[in-house]
Protein backbone atom coordinates (compact mmCIF):
# COMPACT_ATOMS: atom_id res chain seq x y z
CA UNK A 1 0.00 0.00 0.00
CA UNK A 2 1.24 3.45 -0.87
CA UNK A 3 1.43 5.55 2.27
CA UNK A 4 3.20 8.44 0.66
CA UNK A 5 0.37 10.90 0.84
CA UNK A 6 -1.03 10.05 4.25
CA UNK A 7 -0.78 12.74 6.79
CA UNK A 8 -2.15 14.09 9.97
CA UNK A 9 1.09 15.78 10.87
CA UNK A 10 0.92 18.44 8.22
CA UNK A 11 -2.10 20.62 8.64
CA UNK A 12 -2.46 22.75 5.51
CA UNK A 13 -1.27 26.33 5.95
CA UNK A 14 -3.99 28.40 7.60
CA UNK A 15 -4.22 30.64 4.53
CA UNK A 16 -5.35 27.70 2.35
CA UNK A 17 -8.82 27.39 3.90
CA UNK A 18 -9.06 30.96 5.24
CA UNK A 19 -8.91 32.68 1.87
CA UNK A 20 -11.92 30.64 0.73
CA UNK A 21 -13.81 31.27 3.99
CA UNK A 22 -13.14 35.02 4.09
CA UNK A 23 -14.24 35.48 0.46
CA UNK A 24 -17.48 33.47 0.62
CA UNK A 25 -19.64 36.05 2.47
CA UNK A 26 -18.49 38.76 0.02
CA UNK A 27 -20.09 36.81 -2.82
CA UNK A 28 -23.25 36.50 -0.75
CA UNK A 29 -23.23 40.29 -0.27
CA UNK A 30 -22.83 40.67 -4.04
CA UNK A 31 -25.78 38.31 -4.57
CA UNK A 32 -27.79 40.50 -2.18
CA UNK A 33 -27.05 43.59 -4.29
CA UNK A 34 -27.99 41.71 -7.47
CA UNK A 35 -31.33 40.78 -5.88
CA UNK A 36 -31.85 44.36 -4.75
CA UNK A 37 -31.30 45.74 -8.26
CA UNK A 38 -33.16 42.92 -10.00
CA UNK A 39 -36.53 42.88 -11.53
CA UNK A 40 -38.57 40.53 -9.29
CA UNK A 41 -40.32 39.03 -12.32
CA UNK A 42 -36.97 38.13 -13.91
CA UNK A 43 -35.78 36.41 -10.74
CA UNK A 44 -38.86 34.21 -10.60
CA UNK A 45 -37.70 32.52 -13.81
CA UNK A 46 -34.76 30.23 -13.15
CA UNK A 47 -33.37 30.56 -16.68
CA UNK A 48 -33.23 34.37 -16.78
CA UNK A 49 -29.57 35.57 -16.90
CA UNK A 50 -30.18 37.71 -13.79
CA UNK A 51 -31.47 34.67 -11.88
CA UNK A 52 -28.50 32.57 -13.03
CA UNK A 53 -26.12 35.34 -11.89
CA UNK A 54 -27.71 35.52 -8.42
CA UNK A 55 -27.82 31.72 -8.13
CA UNK A 56 -24.14 31.28 -8.99
CA UNK A 57 -22.94 34.14 -6.79
CA UNK A 58 -24.45 32.01 -4.02
CA UNK A 59 -23.76 28.47 -5.22
CA UNK A 60 -20.20 28.96 -6.46
CA UNK A 61 -19.26 32.14 -4.59
CA UNK A 62 -20.60 31.10 -1.22
CA UNK A 63 -21.32 27.35 -1.14
CA UNK A 64 -18.34 26.13 -3.15
CA UNK A 65 -15.92 28.52 -1.48
CA UNK A 66 -17.00 27.31 1.97
CA UNK A 67 -17.11 23.65 0.94
CA UNK A 68 -13.71 23.71 -0.75
CA UNK A 69 -12.15 25.65 2.12
CA UNK A 70 -13.54 23.07 4.51
CA UNK A 71 -12.46 20.11 2.37
CA UNK A 72 -8.91 21.42 2.05
CA UNK A 73 -8.78 21.65 5.83
CA UNK A 74 -10.73 18.50 6.67
CA UNK A 75 -9.15 15.97 4.31
CA UNK A 76 -6.17 15.31 6.61
CA UNK A 77 -8.49 15.22 9.64
CA UNK A 78 -11.41 13.16 8.36
CA UNK A 79 -9.57 10.96 5.89
CA UNK A 80 -5.93 11.13 7.00
CA UNK A 81 -4.82 12.12 3.51
CA UNK A 82 -3.16 15.23 2.19
CA UNK A 83 -3.48 17.10 -1.05
CA UNK A 84 -0.16 17.26 -2.87
CA UNK A 85 1.19 20.81 -3.02
CA UNK A 86 -1.86 21.92 -1.09
CA UNK A 87 -0.70 25.52 -0.80
CA UNK A 88 -0.06 25.99 -4.52
CA UNK A 89 -3.14 24.02 -5.60
CA UNK A 90 -5.49 25.88 -3.27
CA UNK A 91 -3.98 29.27 -4.16
CA UNK A 92 -4.17 28.73 -7.91
CA UNK A 93 -7.67 27.25 -7.82
CA UNK A 94 -8.78 30.10 -5.56
CA UNK A 95 -7.56 32.69 -8.07
CA UNK A 96 -9.18 30.85 -10.98
CA UNK A 97 -12.47 30.39 -9.13
CA UNK A 98 -12.51 33.97 -7.88
CA UNK A 99 -11.89 35.44 -11.32
CA UNK A 100 -14.19 32.89 -12.97
CA UNK A 101 -17.11 33.51 -10.61
CA UNK A 102 -16.78 37.29 -10.95
CA UNK A 103 -16.56 36.93 -14.73
CA UNK A 104 -19.59 34.68 -14.80
CA UNK A 105 -21.92 36.76 -12.63
CA UNK A 106 -20.98 40.12 -14.17
CA UNK A 107 -20.94 38.58 -17.64
CA UNK A 108 -24.48 37.36 -17.15
CA UNK A 109 -25.61 40.58 -15.50
CA UNK A 110 -24.27 42.84 -18.25
CA UNK A 111 -24.66 40.21 -21.00
CA UNK A 112 -21.00 40.22 -22.00
CA UNK A 113 -20.52 37.09 -24.07
CA UNK A 114 -16.72 37.16 -24.29
CA UNK A 115 -16.46 37.49 -20.54
CA UNK A 116 -18.71 34.44 -20.13
CA UNK A 117 -16.49 32.40 -22.40
CA UNK A 118 -13.40 33.37 -20.43
CA UNK A 119 -15.25 32.70 -17.16
CA UNK A 120 -16.20 29.20 -18.31
CA UNK A 121 -12.51 28.40 -18.87
CA UNK A 122 -11.42 29.92 -15.57
CA UNK A 123 -14.11 28.12 -13.60
CA UNK A 124 -13.46 24.86 -15.40
CA UNK A 125 -9.74 25.16 -14.64
CA UNK A 126 -10.26 26.10 -10.99
CA UNK A 127 -12.79 23.38 -10.26
CA UNK A 128 -11.00 20.61 -12.14
CA UNK A 129 -7.66 21.43 -10.52
CA UNK A 130 -8.99 21.31 -6.98
CA UNK A 131 -11.42 18.43 -7.44
CA UNK A 132 -8.91 16.16 -9.17
CA UNK A 133 -6.23 17.05 -6.59
CA UNK A 134 -8.62 16.04 -3.81
CA UNK A 135 -9.78 12.86 -5.53
CA UNK A 136 -6.14 11.99 -6.17
CA UNK A 137 -5.34 12.47 -2.47
CA UNK A 138 -7.85 9.75 -1.57
CA UNK A 139 -5.67 7.10 -3.22
CA UNK A 140 -3.74 6.79 0.04
CA UNK A 141 -6.68 6.52 2.40
CA UNK A 142 -6.09 3.65 4.82
CA UNK A 143 -9.62 3.17 6.09
CA UNK A 144 -12.80 3.88 4.16
CA UNK A 145 -15.86 4.70 6.22
CA UNK A 146 -19.30 6.12 5.39
CA UNK A 147 -18.08 9.74 5.56
CA UNK A 148 -15.16 9.12 3.24
CA UNK A 149 -17.33 7.22 0.79
CA UNK A 150 -19.68 10.22 0.78
CA UNK A 151 -16.85 12.69 0.25
CA UNK A 152 -15.47 10.77 -2.72
CA UNK A 153 -18.95 10.35 -4.23
CA UNK A 154 -19.75 14.03 -3.84
CA UNK A 155 -16.46 14.99 -5.50
CA UNK A 156 -17.26 12.73 -8.45
CA UNK A 157 -20.60 14.55 -8.78
CA UNK A 158 -18.68 17.83 -8.52
CA UNK A 159 -16.49 16.75 -11.41
CA UNK A 160 -19.49 15.88 -13.59
CA UNK A 161 -21.40 19.07 -12.80
CA UNK A 162 -18.28 21.09 -13.55
CA UNK A 163 -18.10 19.60 -17.04
CA UNK A 164 -21.80 20.27 -17.59
CA UNK A 165 -21.46 23.77 -16.14
CA UNK A 166 -18.53 24.66 -18.38
CA UNK A 167 -20.51 23.47 -21.41
CA UNK A 168 -23.59 25.49 -20.37
CA UNK A 169 -21.67 28.68 -19.66
CA UNK A 170 -19.58 28.38 -22.82
CA UNK A 171 -22.85 28.02 -24.77
CA UNK A 172 -23.86 31.45 -23.50
CA UNK A 173 -20.35 32.66 -24.33
CA UNK A 174 -20.53 31.65 -27.97
CA UNK A 175 -24.23 32.46 -28.20
CA UNK A 176 -25.17 28.96 -29.26
CA UNK A 177 -27.89 27.52 -27.08
CA UNK A 178 -28.56 23.95 -28.19
CA UNK A 179 -31.78 21.98 -27.94
CA UNK A 180 -30.44 20.05 -24.97
CA UNK A 181 -29.48 23.18 -23.02
CA UNK A 182 -32.42 23.13 -20.59
CA UNK A 183 -32.09 19.40 -20.01
CA UNK A 184 -28.38 19.80 -19.21
CA UNK A 185 -29.12 22.77 -16.97
CA UNK A 186 -31.65 20.68 -15.08
CA UNK A 187 -29.19 17.82 -14.60
CA UNK A 188 -26.47 20.29 -13.60
CA UNK A 189 -28.60 21.90 -10.89
CA UNK A 190 -30.16 18.74 -9.41
CA UNK A 191 -26.83 16.90 -9.30
CA UNK A 192 -25.12 19.96 -7.83
CA UNK A 193 -27.61 20.37 -5.01
CA UNK A 194 -28.23 16.74 -4.10
CA UNK A 195 -25.23 14.94 -5.59
CA UNK A 196 -22.43 17.31 -4.65
CA UNK A 197 -23.59 19.49 -1.73
CA UNK A 198 -26.26 17.11 -0.40
CA UNK A 199 -24.15 13.95 -0.26
CA UNK A 200 -21.19 15.88 1.15
CA UNK A 201 -23.30 17.33 3.97
CA UNK A 202 -24.83 13.93 4.75
CA UNK A 203 -21.41 12.29 4.87
CA UNK A 204 -19.82 14.95 7.03
CA UNK A 205 -22.83 15.01 9.37
CA UNK A 206 -22.34 11.27 10.07
CA UNK A 207 -19.02 12.19 11.67
CA UNK A 208 -19.47 15.73 12.91
CA UNK A 209 -22.78 15.53 14.78
CA UNK A 210 -21.89 12.58 17.04
CA UNK A 211 -18.38 13.84 17.69
CA UNK A 212 -18.72 17.60 18.17
CA UNK A 213 -22.07 17.55 19.96
CA UNK A 214 -21.85 14.08 21.56
CA UNK A 215 -25.07 13.26 19.70
CA UNK A 216 -26.31 9.71 19.04
CA UNK A 217 -24.73 8.12 15.98
CA UNK A 218 -26.72 7.80 12.77
CA UNK A 219 -28.08 4.26 12.45
CA UNK A 220 -25.55 1.90 10.79
CA UNK A 221 -28.13 0.95 8.16
CA UNK A 222 -28.61 4.58 7.18
CA UNK A 223 -24.87 5.26 7.17
CA UNK A 224 -24.33 2.27 4.95
CA UNK A 225 -27.05 2.88 2.41
CA UNK A 226 -27.77 6.64 2.35
CA UNK A 227 -25.14 7.50 -0.24
CA UNK A 228 -25.99 4.43 -2.30
CA UNK A 229 -29.69 5.34 -2.35
CA UNK A 230 -28.89 8.95 -3.23
CA UNK A 231 -26.64 7.88 -6.13
CA UNK A 232 -29.19 5.33 -7.35
CA UNK A 233 -31.93 7.98 -7.17
CA UNK A 234 -29.86 10.58 -9.01
CA UNK A 235 -28.80 8.17 -11.76
CA UNK A 236 -32.35 6.85 -12.16
CA UNK A 237 -33.62 10.42 -12.29
CA UNK A 238 -31.14 11.15 -15.09
CA UNK A 239 -32.19 8.09 -17.09
CA UNK A 240 -35.89 8.85 -16.67
CA UNK A 241 -35.28 12.49 -17.58
CA UNK A 242 -33.61 11.42 -20.78
CA UNK A 243 -35.93 8.64 -21.86
CA UNK A 244 -39.18 8.74 -19.88
CA UNK A 245 -39.63 12.22 -18.50
CA UNK A 246 -43.14 11.66 -17.19
CA UNK A 247 -41.84 9.00 -14.76
CA UNK A 248 -39.00 11.15 -13.40
CA UNK A 249 -41.10 11.97 -10.36
CA UNK A 250 -40.55 8.39 -9.13
CA UNK A 251 -36.79 9.01 -8.90
CA UNK A 252 -37.38 12.47 -7.47
CA UNK A 253 -39.46 10.89 -4.70
CA UNK A 254 -36.60 8.52 -3.81
CA UNK A 255 -34.09 11.38 -3.59
CA UNK A 256 -36.50 13.65 -1.72
CA UNK A 257 -37.44 10.91 0.76
CA UNK A 258 -33.82 10.14 1.49
CA UNK A 259 -32.90 13.75 2.17
CA UNK A 260 -36.07 14.30 4.17
CA UNK A 261 -35.26 11.30 6.34
CA UNK A 262 -31.74 12.67 6.76
CA UNK A 263 -33.06 16.11 7.73
CA UNK A 264 -35.46 14.66 10.30
CA UNK A 265 -32.76 12.37 11.67
CA UNK A 266 -30.30 15.28 11.90
CA UNK A 267 -32.88 17.26 13.87
CA UNK A 268 -33.51 14.32 16.23
CA UNK A 269 -29.80 13.62 16.70
CA UNK A 270 -29.00 17.25 17.45
CA UNK A 271 -31.95 17.44 19.87
CA UNK A 272 -30.80 14.27 21.64
CA UNK A 273 -27.20 15.45 21.94
CA UNK A 274 -25.45 14.80 25.24
CA UNK A 275 -23.83 18.27 25.23
CA UNK A 276 -26.75 20.38 26.29
CA UNK A 277 -24.98 23.65 25.59
CA UNK A 278 -26.59 25.44 22.68
CA UNK A 279 -24.72 27.72 20.31
CA UNK A 280 -25.28 29.31 16.94
CA UNK A 281 -24.13 26.21 15.08
CA UNK A 282 -26.92 24.17 16.71
CA UNK A 283 -29.44 26.77 15.56
CA UNK A 284 -28.05 26.55 12.05
CA UNK A 285 -28.26 22.73 12.00
CA UNK A 286 -31.84 22.91 13.19
CA UNK A 287 -32.86 25.54 10.65
CA UNK A 288 -31.16 23.47 7.94
CA UNK A 289 -33.21 20.42 8.99
CA UNK A 290 -36.50 22.34 8.94
CA UNK A 291 -35.88 23.97 5.55
CA UNK A 292 -34.73 20.70 4.00
CA UNK A 293 -37.81 18.84 5.24
CA UNK A 294 -40.14 21.46 3.78
CA UNK A 295 -37.93 21.89 0.70
CA UNK A 296 -37.95 18.21 -0.30
CA UNK A 297 -41.75 18.08 -0.08
CA UNK A 298 -41.99 21.28 -2.15
CA UNK A 299 -39.56 19.85 -4.73
CA UNK A 300 -41.75 16.80 -5.38
CA UNK A 301 -45.02 18.74 -5.25
CA UNK A 302 -43.51 21.23 -7.75
CA UNK A 303 -43.76 18.49 -10.38
CA UNK A 304 -47.56 18.60 -10.22
CA UNK A 305 -47.47 22.33 -11.04
CA UNK A 306 -45.34 22.13 -14.16
CA UNK A 307 -42.23 23.10 -12.15
CA UNK A 308 -43.65 26.61 -11.68
CA UNK A 309 -42.21 26.85 -8.18
CA UNK A 310 -38.61 25.83 -8.88
CA UNK A 311 -37.20 29.14 -7.63
CA UNK A 312 -39.26 28.82 -4.43
CA UNK A 313 -37.91 25.28 -3.93
CA UNK A 314 -34.35 26.52 -4.55
CA UNK A 315 -34.75 29.14 -1.83
CA UNK A 316 -35.82 26.46 0.65
CA UNK A 317 -33.24 23.82 -0.25
CA UNK A 318 -30.31 25.99 -1.34
CA UNK A 319 -30.90 28.95 0.94
CA UNK A 320 -32.43 27.15 3.89
CA UNK A 321 -30.52 23.90 3.96
CA UNK A 322 -27.13 24.30 2.29
CA UNK A 323 -26.61 27.94 3.28
CA UNK A 324 -27.49 27.21 6.92
CA UNK A 325 -25.07 24.29 7.18
CA UNK A 326 -22.28 26.29 5.50
CA UNK A 327 -22.77 29.28 7.82
CA UNK A 328 -22.75 27.07 10.90
CA UNK A 329 -19.59 25.39 9.65
CA UNK A 330 -17.85 28.75 9.22
CA UNK A 331 -18.61 29.66 12.83
CA UNK A 332 -17.08 26.41 14.05
CA UNK A 333 -14.04 26.05 11.80
CA UNK A 334 -12.64 29.58 11.52
CA UNK A 335 -12.16 30.33 15.26
CA UNK A 336 -10.75 26.84 15.77
CA UNK A 337 -8.22 27.25 12.96
CA UNK A 338 -7.07 30.58 14.36
CA UNK A 339 -6.71 29.16 17.86
CA UNK A 340 -5.05 25.95 16.68
CA UNK A 341 -2.46 27.60 14.44
CA UNK A 342 -1.58 30.28 17.01
CA UNK A 343 -1.32 27.74 19.79
CA UNK A 344 0.83 25.47 17.64
CA UNK A 345 3.15 28.41 17.05
CA UNK A 346 3.61 28.75 20.79
CA UNK A 347 1.35 31.72 21.51
CA UNK A 348 -0.29 30.85 24.80
CA UNK A 349 -2.04 34.09 25.81
CA UNK A 350 -4.59 34.02 23.05
CA UNK A 351 -8.38 34.20 23.19
CA UNK A 352 -10.24 30.90 23.20
CA UNK A 353 -12.60 30.07 20.34
CA UNK A 354 -15.62 31.49 22.14
CA UNK A 355 -13.91 34.83 22.70
CA UNK A 356 -13.03 35.38 19.05
CA UNK A 357 -16.51 36.11 17.72
CA UNK A 358 -19.06 38.28 19.48
CA UNK A 359 -21.96 35.99 20.45
CA UNK A 360 -24.57 38.72 20.17
CA UNK A 361 -23.41 39.49 16.64
CA UNK A 362 -23.79 35.81 15.65
CA UNK A 363 -27.34 35.77 17.01
CA UNK A 364 -28.26 38.92 15.09
CA UNK A 365 -26.67 37.49 11.98
CA UNK A 366 -28.67 34.28 12.31
CA UNK A 367 -31.96 36.11 12.97
CA UNK A 368 -31.46 38.45 10.01
CA UNK A 369 -30.54 35.57 7.73
CA UNK A 370 -33.62 33.51 8.62
CA UNK A 371 -35.81 36.62 8.36
CA UNK A 372 -34.43 37.35 4.87
CA UNK A 373 -34.81 33.75 3.79
CA UNK A 374 -38.48 33.63 4.78
CA UNK A 375 -38.86 37.03 3.10
CA UNK A 376 -37.33 35.70 -0.14
CA UNK A 377 -39.64 32.67 -0.08
CA UNK A 378 -42.69 34.92 0.44
CA UNK A 379 -41.45 37.33 -2.23
CA UNK A 380 -41.86 34.58 -4.78
CA UNK A 381 -45.62 35.05 -4.31
CA UNK A 382 -45.78 38.74 -3.27
CA UNK A 383 -42.79 40.57 -4.69
CA UNK A 384 -43.31 44.13 -3.36
CA UNK A 385 -40.89 43.71 -0.47
CA UNK A 386 -38.14 41.81 -2.29
CA UNK A 387 -35.85 44.86 -2.18
CA UNK A 388 -36.32 45.18 1.58
CA UNK A 389 -35.46 41.51 2.15
CA UNK A 390 -32.45 41.90 -0.14
CA UNK A 391 -31.25 44.66 2.19
CA UNK A 392 -31.74 42.58 5.35
CA UNK A 393 -29.90 39.73 3.62
CA UNK A 394 -27.02 42.06 2.75
CA UNK A 395 -26.84 43.22 6.38
CA UNK A 396 -26.82 39.60 7.61
CA UNK A 397 -23.98 38.75 5.21
CA UNK A 398 -21.99 41.86 6.17
CA UNK A 399 -22.36 40.69 9.77
CA UNK A 400 -21.26 37.18 8.82
CA UNK A 401 -18.17 38.59 7.11
CA UNK A 402 -17.49 40.86 10.08
CA UNK A 403 -17.75 37.90 12.47
CA UNK A 404 -15.42 35.73 10.38
CA UNK A 405 -12.93 38.53 9.82
CA UNK A 406 -12.89 39.33 13.56
CA UNK A 407 -11.40 35.89 14.17
CA UNK A 408 -9.03 36.10 11.19
CA UNK A 409 -7.73 39.48 12.37
CA UNK A 410 -6.88 38.02 15.77
CA UNK A 411 -4.55 35.63 13.96
CA UNK A 412 -2.72 38.32 12.00
CA UNK A 413 -2.64 40.77 14.92
CA UNK A 414 -1.11 38.13 17.20
CA UNK A 415 1.50 37.20 14.61
CA UNK A 416 2.35 40.87 14.21
CA UNK A 417 2.43 41.96 17.86
CA UNK A 418 3.79 38.70 19.37
CA UNK A 419 2.09 39.12 22.76
CA UNK A 420 4.05 36.39 24.54
CA UNK A 421 7.08 34.21 24.10
CA UNK A 422 7.11 32.70 20.67
CA UNK A 423 8.03 29.03 20.82
CA UNK A 424 7.33 28.37 17.20
CA UNK A 425 10.81 27.05 16.65
CA UNK A 426 10.15 24.24 19.06
CA UNK A 427 6.69 23.30 18.00
CA UNK A 428 5.02 21.60 15.07
CA UNK A 429 4.97 23.17 11.68
CA UNK A 430 1.46 24.47 11.05
CA UNK A 431 2.59 27.43 8.99
Amino acid at each position, binding site marked *: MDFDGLSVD*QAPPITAPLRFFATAPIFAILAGFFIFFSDAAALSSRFAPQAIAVTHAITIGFFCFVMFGALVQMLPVL*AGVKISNVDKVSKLSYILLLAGTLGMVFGLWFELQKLLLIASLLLGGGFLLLITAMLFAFRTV*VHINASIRAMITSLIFALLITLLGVHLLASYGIGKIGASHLLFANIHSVWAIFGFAGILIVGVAFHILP*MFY*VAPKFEPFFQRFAVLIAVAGLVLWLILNLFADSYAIAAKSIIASLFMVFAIMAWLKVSARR*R*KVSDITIWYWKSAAVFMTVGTVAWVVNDFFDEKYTVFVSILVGGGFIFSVMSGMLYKIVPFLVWFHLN*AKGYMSIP*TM*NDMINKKATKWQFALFIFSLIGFALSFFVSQFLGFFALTFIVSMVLLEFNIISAVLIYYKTIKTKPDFDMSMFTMKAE
Partner: protein
Amino acid sequence: MSDIKEFLTNDHRACDEEFALLEEAVAAKNSDAPKLYEKFSSDLTNHFSMEEIVLFPMLGQASSVAGGAIKAMEMEHEQMRTLLSKMRKAVESMDKESFFSLSETLMILMQQHNMKEEQLLYTLAEQHLGEDADHIVRQMRSVAY
Protein backbone atom coordinates in the same frame (compact mmCIF):
# COMPACT_ATOMS: atom_id res chain seq x y z
CA MET B 1 -9.15 -11.40 20.75
CA SER B 2 -8.65 -7.73 21.53
CA ASP B 3 -8.90 -4.94 19.03
CA ILE B 4 -6.63 -1.93 19.58
CA LYS B 5 -8.76 0.39 17.48
CA GLU B 6 -11.99 -0.60 19.18
CA PHE B 7 -10.47 -0.37 22.66
CA LEU B 8 -9.09 3.15 22.16
CA THR B 9 -12.09 4.40 20.17
CA ASN B 10 -14.42 3.26 22.96
CA ASP B 11 -12.20 5.10 25.40
CA HIS B 12 -12.59 8.27 23.31
CA ARG B 13 -16.36 7.93 23.47
CA ALA B 14 -16.28 7.31 27.22
CA CYS B 15 -14.31 10.55 27.68
CA ASP B 16 -16.87 12.38 25.50
CA GLU B 17 -19.67 11.19 27.77
CA GLU B 18 -17.80 12.40 30.84
CA PHE B 19 -17.13 15.71 29.15
CA ALA B 20 -20.86 16.15 28.42
CA LEU B 21 -21.72 15.37 32.05
CA LEU B 22 -19.15 17.89 33.25
CA GLU B 23 -20.52 20.63 30.98
CA GLU B 24 -24.03 19.91 32.18
CA ALA B 25 -22.94 20.13 35.81
CA VAL B 26 -21.11 23.43 35.31
CA ALA B 27 -24.06 24.88 33.37
CA ALA B 28 -26.33 24.02 36.31
CA LYS B 29 -23.67 25.17 38.83
CA ASN B 30 -23.99 21.70 40.32
CA SER B 31 -21.77 20.93 43.33
CA ASP B 32 -20.68 17.69 41.63
CA ALA B 33 -18.79 19.65 38.98
CA PRO B 34 -15.31 19.45 40.60
CA LYS B 35 -15.71 15.68 41.07
CA LEU B 36 -16.82 15.25 37.46
CA TYR B 37 -13.91 17.40 36.33
CA GLU B 38 -11.46 15.17 38.22
CA LYS B 39 -12.95 12.05 36.65
CA PHE B 40 -12.86 13.48 33.13
CA SER B 41 -9.41 14.96 33.54
CA SER B 42 -7.89 11.80 34.95
CA ASP B 43 -9.51 9.56 32.31
CA LEU B 44 -8.40 11.81 29.48
CA THR B 45 -4.83 12.08 30.70
CA ASN B 46 -4.82 8.30 31.28
CA HIS B 47 -5.80 7.88 27.68
CA PHE B 48 -2.87 10.05 26.61
CA SER B 49 -0.54 7.97 28.79
CA MET B 50 -1.75 4.69 27.28
CA GLU B 51 -0.87 6.03 23.87
CA GLU B 52 2.37 7.78 24.77
CA ILE B 53 3.82 5.01 26.93
CA VAL B 54 2.60 1.91 25.11
CA LEU B 55 1.07 2.40 21.68
CA PHE B 56 3.07 5.20 20.09
CA PRO B 57 6.55 3.79 20.74
CA MET B 58 5.49 0.38 19.40
CA LEU B 59 3.76 1.87 16.39
CA GLY B 60 6.69 4.18 15.70
CA GLN B 61 8.95 1.14 15.50
CA ALA B 62 6.56 -0.95 13.45
CA SER B 63 5.55 1.65 10.89
CA SER B 64 7.97 3.91 9.13
CA VAL B 65 5.24 6.35 8.11
CA ALA B 66 3.63 6.90 11.50
CA GLY B 67 6.45 8.97 13.02
CA GLY B 68 5.30 12.43 11.93
CA ALA B 69 1.72 11.75 12.85
CA ILE B 70 2.73 10.48 16.30
CA LYS B 71 4.69 13.67 16.95
CA ALA B 72 1.68 15.76 15.95
CA MET B 73 -0.59 13.73 18.23
CA GLU B 74 1.77 14.16 21.18
CA MET B 75 1.87 17.88 20.52
CA GLU B 76 -1.93 17.99 20.57
CA HIS B 77 -1.93 16.02 23.85
CA GLU B 78 0.15 18.84 25.31
CA GLN B 79 -2.27 21.45 23.99
CA MET B 80 -5.14 19.55 25.63
CA ARG B 81 -3.27 19.17 28.93
CA THR B 82 -2.80 22.96 29.02
CA LEU B 83 -6.47 23.59 28.38
CA LEU B 84 -7.40 20.99 31.01
CA SER B 85 -5.34 22.71 33.69
CA LYS B 86 -6.95 26.06 32.84
CA MET B 87 -10.36 24.41 33.07
CA ARG B 88 -9.57 23.20 36.58
CA LYS B 89 -9.27 26.79 37.77
CA ALA B 90 -12.54 27.72 36.07
CA VAL B 91 -14.35 24.77 37.72
CA GLU B 92 -12.91 25.53 41.14
CA SER B 93 -14.05 29.14 40.97
CA MET B 94 -17.30 28.15 39.17
CA ASP B 95 -16.49 30.71 36.51
CA LYS B 96 -19.00 29.54 33.91
CA GLU B 97 -17.98 31.95 31.19
CA SER B 98 -14.33 31.06 31.37
CA PHE B 99 -15.15 27.35 31.65
CA PHE B 100 -17.30 27.24 28.51
CA SER B 101 -14.80 29.32 26.61
CA LEU B 102 -12.16 26.71 27.37
CA SER B 103 -14.41 23.67 27.10
CA GLU B 104 -15.57 24.52 23.58
CA THR B 105 -11.98 24.91 22.43
CA LEU B 106 -10.98 21.66 24.14
CA MET B 107 -13.94 19.84 22.59
CA ILE B 108 -13.11 20.82 19.02
CA LEU B 109 -9.41 20.16 19.54
CA MET B 110 -10.19 16.80 21.12
CA GLN B 111 -12.60 15.72 18.39
CA GLN B 112 -10.45 16.64 15.43
CA HIS B 113 -7.60 14.88 17.27
CA ASN B 114 -9.77 11.77 17.80
CA MET B 115 -10.79 11.74 14.14
CA LYS B 116 -7.17 11.71 13.06
CA GLU B 117 -6.25 8.95 15.49
CA GLU B 118 -9.25 6.79 14.68
CA GLN B 119 -8.94 7.27 10.95
CA LEU B 120 -5.21 6.87 10.59
CA LEU B 121 -3.12 5.91 13.61
CA TYR B 122 -5.41 3.24 15.05
CA THR B 123 -5.90 1.78 11.58
CA LEU B 124 -2.13 1.61 11.16
CA ALA B 125 -1.88 0.05 14.62
CA GLU B 126 -4.37 -2.61 13.56
CA GLN B 127 -2.39 -3.32 10.43
CA HIS B 128 1.06 -3.41 12.02
CA LEU B 129 0.40 -4.54 15.59
CA GLY B 130 -2.86 -6.48 15.18
CA GLU B 131 -1.31 -9.85 15.95
CA ASP B 132 -0.04 -8.57 19.27
CA ALA B 133 -3.27 -6.78 20.13
CA ASP B 134 -4.13 -8.80 23.27
CA HIS B 135 -0.77 -8.06 24.80
CA ILE B 136 -0.82 -4.37 23.82
CA VAL B 137 -4.32 -3.76 25.16
CA ARG B 138 -3.33 -5.49 28.42
CA GLN B 139 -0.29 -3.25 28.68
CA MET B 140 -2.37 -0.16 28.03
CA ARG B 141 -4.86 -1.19 30.71
CA SER B 142 -2.02 -1.62 33.19
CA VAL B 143 -0.79 1.91 32.47
CA ALA B 144 -4.18 3.40 33.00
CA TYR B 145 -5.60 1.55 35.93
